[in-house]
């Protein structure tokens, strides 16, 4: 078995300031896992499907966890969740929604589409840093990720 603790984290976020905050927080928390950062929803779908520029699963491995913003260019976070649900093993990948939307309706909709957890982006950098540390402790160190075959899936 490969070392699960060093599996990739997929960060899907289009706001440059949030990305900068999160990236710094990952560094501060000494997260050794490779963090793949994507900004566009359509790109996320290609990455997960192993299509186009992401066909090489060794170079672009399926992540242990996805941190997913909801408002994105291209496919939205909700559309990505919906798409994942009808895939084979890709639907097992834990998705943590990470957004500024606190409305109960959105929270319920995300769970209905199979989100594993829902987090609201904190307001200040110290809290972001603490949140990233907690995410890493829980989803990388504690949680058992699904076992996925490293291959692209047919639609």
């Amino acid at each position: 078995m490969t070392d699960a603790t060093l599996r990739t984290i997929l960060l899907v976020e289009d706001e440059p300031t949030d990305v900068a905050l999160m990236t710094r927080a990952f560094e501060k928390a000494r997260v050794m896992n490779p963090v793949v950062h994507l900004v566009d929803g359509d790109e996320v779908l290609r990455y997960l499907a192993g299509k186009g520029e992401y066909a090489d699963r060794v170079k672009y491995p399926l992540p242990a966890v996805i941190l997913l913003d909801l408002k994105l260019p291209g496919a939205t976070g909700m559309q990505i969740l919906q798409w994942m649900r009808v895939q084979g093993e890709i639907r097992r990948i834990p998705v943590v929604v990470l957004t500024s939307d606190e409305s109960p309706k959105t929270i319920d909709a995300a769970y209905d589409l199979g989100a594993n957890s829902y987090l609201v982006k904190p307001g200040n950098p110290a809290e972001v840093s603490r949140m990233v540390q907690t995410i890493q402790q829980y989803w990388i160190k504690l949680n058992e990720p699904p076992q996925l075959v490293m291959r692209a899936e047919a639609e």
Partner: protein
Amino acid sequence: MQNESVLLVEDDPSDFRLIQRAFNKLGERFEMFRLTNGDEAIAYLSGDDPYENRGAHPMPSMLLLDLKLPRRSGFEVLEWVRRQSSALSRLPVVVLTSSRHSVDINRAYDLGANSYLVKPATNSQLEDLASQFRNYWMSLNEFPSLAEQPRGMND
């Protein structure tokens, strides 16, 4: 901050004592109820006899579910929760089991588990697990709204 509650479904008394002790050490941030088999868990969530009174038996924020249970297994409970046509189907379910088999891990995710945790071997590791569980789910996660809880005339 609202008080979240966890329903623990665990049949092994010594595991239960250890888990309870580990969680109790964390203080009073959240409540934990315990049931010992799958049938009880389903009766509790349905609000069936003897759990009709939601004042005494409140709907939990989430389920912490062992897999090997007498009567209905954890898998069956999970399947039942996700099959509900009510908002109950959103209930976050974290599996806590001694099985590290990839067949069980994948099956749990396929059935809609939000997270999969393996019971650690030592007490101190279990305390770490309890505190990380608390730090993540009780401090960070936003929970979905579940079935309307019947309110008394007094509010």
